[in-house]
């Protein structure tokens, strides 16, 4: 694995651990006001400073990362699995089924994801379930497009023709013959979707339409501490850096994967 890939892997693992064990290793409860200093600087008692109410930033970030990563993971899995499944149906059935599904997905993809999210929140109010649903719906068409183009390529290969000439039913052709040969690129695509969802949810939270107080994800941490920007407070910089490291490291990791599969294919 390349150096960039190793760096990516390190940060991804670190963030996953933070999301899983964050609450149990956080030095303070998430909502506790522990310091009289608001927008406190880095210190030994509060390694990442304090926020606009004097809460410990390290604890806030550990709790927040669980929201950001958890929500994004669930939404990205939903989007990828749904997209891939619909794509397999479209590609194996072909004909008017493919045409109908593809045009529907085209219609969905033409709706900007942020606009859709804003409308959904405006209509139904913000909740964790709604956020996941919105993100999943927004990113399903993208996953579908990638998966369908992969499946259509695989479909024309001779081993798929051989299966069809053998008289196999379409579900068998889709699941046993086509799916195993598109898993690797779909995993890379899943990583990308995850990053998109993190950015969408962080953006929503930054606008105050995402995760609602007293809970906070990384995006809402940036928003609630935005007034600290003028004082150069760590409280606003640290969650922003957290979002950046998370998304960039996932990207680095994916890039190193696709590079490796590329070389294997060449051999």
């Amino acid at each position, binding site marked *: 694995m390349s150096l960039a890939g190793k760096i990516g892997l390190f940060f991804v693992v670190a963030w996953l651990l933070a999301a899983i064990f964050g609450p149990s290793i956080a030095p303070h409860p998430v909502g506790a006001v522990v310091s009289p200093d608001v927008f406190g600087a880095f210190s030994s008692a509060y390694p990442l400073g304090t926020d606009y109410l004097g809460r410990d930033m390290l604890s806030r970030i550990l709790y927040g990362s669980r929201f950001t990563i958890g929500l994004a993971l669930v939404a990205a899995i939903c989007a990828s699995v749904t997209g891939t499944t619909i794509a397999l149906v479209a590609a194996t059935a072909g004909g008017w089924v493919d045409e109908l599904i593809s045009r529907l997905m085209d219609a969905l993809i033409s709706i900007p994801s942020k606009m859709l999210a804003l409308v959904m929140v405006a209509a139904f109010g913000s909740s964790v379930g709604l956020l996941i649903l919105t993100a999943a719906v927004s990113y399903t068409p993208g996953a579908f497009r990638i998966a369908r183009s992969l499946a259509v390529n695989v479909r024309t*290969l*001779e*081993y798929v*023709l*051989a299966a*069809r*000439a*053998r*008289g*196999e039913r379409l579900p068998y052709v889709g699941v046993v*013959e086509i799916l*195993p*040969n598109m898993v690797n690129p779909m995993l890379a695509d899943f990583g990308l979707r995850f990053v998109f969802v993190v950015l969408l949810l962080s953006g929503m939270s930054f606008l105050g339409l995402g995760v609602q107080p007293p809970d906070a994800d990384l995006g809402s941490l940036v928003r609630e501490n935005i007034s600290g920007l003028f004082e150069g407070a760590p409280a606003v910089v640290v969650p922003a850096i957290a979002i950046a490291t998370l998304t960039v490291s996932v990207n680095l990791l994916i890039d190193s994967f696709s590079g490796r599969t590329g070389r294997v294919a060449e*051999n």
Partner: protein
Amino acid sequence: MSALVEVQGLSVVVRNADGGETAIVKDVSFSIPKGRVLALIGESGSGKTTIALSLLGYARRGCRIAGGSIRIGETQVLDLDDEGLYALRGAKVSYIAQSAAAAFNPMKTIMDQVVEGAVIHGTATRAAAEAKAVELFAALALPDPKGIGARYPHQVSGGQLQRLMAAMALITDPELVVLDEPTTALDVTTQIEVLRAFKKVVRERGATAVYVSHDLAVVAQMADQILVLSDGEMREIGATDDILVRPRHAYTQSLLAAAAPQPRGEGAAKDAAALLEIRGLVAGYGRVGADGMPATRVLDDIDLTIARGRTLGVIGESGSGKTTLARVVAGLVPAARGSVLFEGQPLPTNLTERTREQFRRIQIVFQNADTVLNPAHSIARILARPLAFYHGVRGEEAAKRIARLLDLVKLPATLATRKPAELSGGQKQRVNLARALAAEPDLILCDEVTSALDTVVGAAVLDLLAELRRELGVSLMFISHDISTVRAVCDDVAVLYSGCKVDSGRRKDIAAPPFHPYADLLISSVPELRSGWLDGLPARLAVEAPAPGAGKPPPGLCTFLDRCPVRIAGLCDQVAPPRRILEGGKEILCHHTGAELEAVQVTKASGPGSRRRDETERI
């Protein structure tokens, strides 16, 4: 200085995944006198292309020229730095690749690309280079030498493009030309026009050349000397006639034996009951119009019969519709008109309407062994599926049957746990066959099963097919572009041209005239394993293939009209040809009678024969 090119102790290594190195070319030495052609011959993986590329001082990614010396003229190629190599390539040594279609940039005109080398290396001004290019076009027998340069690559035929690449390589007057399988991707009727042009140019310009090929018969026409390679080692080097007539090395002998396949035993008696009958079949691709006809018609009015236990060879060039024919029978392409009868019962042309039993009894074996096995599945899983699917056999019984199947196609049982990527091409093709056999079919459709394989491996697969037919009594539809393979394994033969069956008969009928004019062209275009064959060819074979987009003859007329050397003006371009049934059951789709065709073909076919006599007299 005796030789123009001198290679001493050349070795090339490839880096392994674990950091070690494996030699792929081992201690190869040869020399080429000025104006001579040396052929490098061997199977895939023998290192012939690697040696050819090292003459340009080039090693493919992951490879390294590890030792030896290459001298071209006064240049030590392996001592050159990047700048020296830049000056060498395209100027002193030029390269003609296998696929001209992939070597040309579709966005630039042909002339731009042909003169590029000369202009970059500053050997000529643009105007001088263009004048020279036109001269080369004429020498290469290209039509319209003055105008062809203004066209784009997609506007000329494959054979023409290959010759244009030769012009590109020769524009700088290189000291050495490297031709890497330049005719392998071409149809046999196109190959001969390209070979002729190459031969003429090489002779006229006194070019020194290295000709890389796997095809001994082609090499026999082009080369003065042959170097036989296998596994990166030199097996034999000698004058062309010596190698062809008196091969010393066992490997050369096996190559020669495989190049001229012997007829395998005949199948069941010719009056056996019909297993598959195709009547008036029309099929194609694209949207189906109001009249029920697809937009692109690929097959037109095809009648064929395969008797139980016999083998039907279907032969034709690329685009003749032979693969589509197999796919219609397999149910992958629907028929627009006509019927397919299996044991007298009409076979639904649609996949969804066929019963599992119908699927089982007709198995199709696809051409490309590399893509026909699912790379994600193990060999055992690939073979277990038809067993479970058709026969409901699972578990231990299935494992036993898989072992028996592998044994039947002469593969070790240990292969069962491997993935297709770990197998060689010949092994994959055997697994491919075994999968079809697992269904215990009555009819196997073999679509170019040996085309992607090396000659020796292909011959072994043909032997296997003949043996299976004898032991299991299955019928075969054997689709191929290669007439010598068809001759070797088939009882009956049908020749397709542009979707029409133009000629059909028994195996012996394709050994002697009369033929349909296209069948005649096809049969006479197959290079023979002796030098001088190309020079003795009758002139009637020098008909150019039409360029793409030239358009087919109007529907209803003979599809071979614009290439036919014996067409009758006023008749062939007005009236559809009748289907003539000659004595012995041979069918020909032509206005000429059997006797007329025979007269033309016999007199001209004696050309090479009489030439051979001349040669013996001279000796």
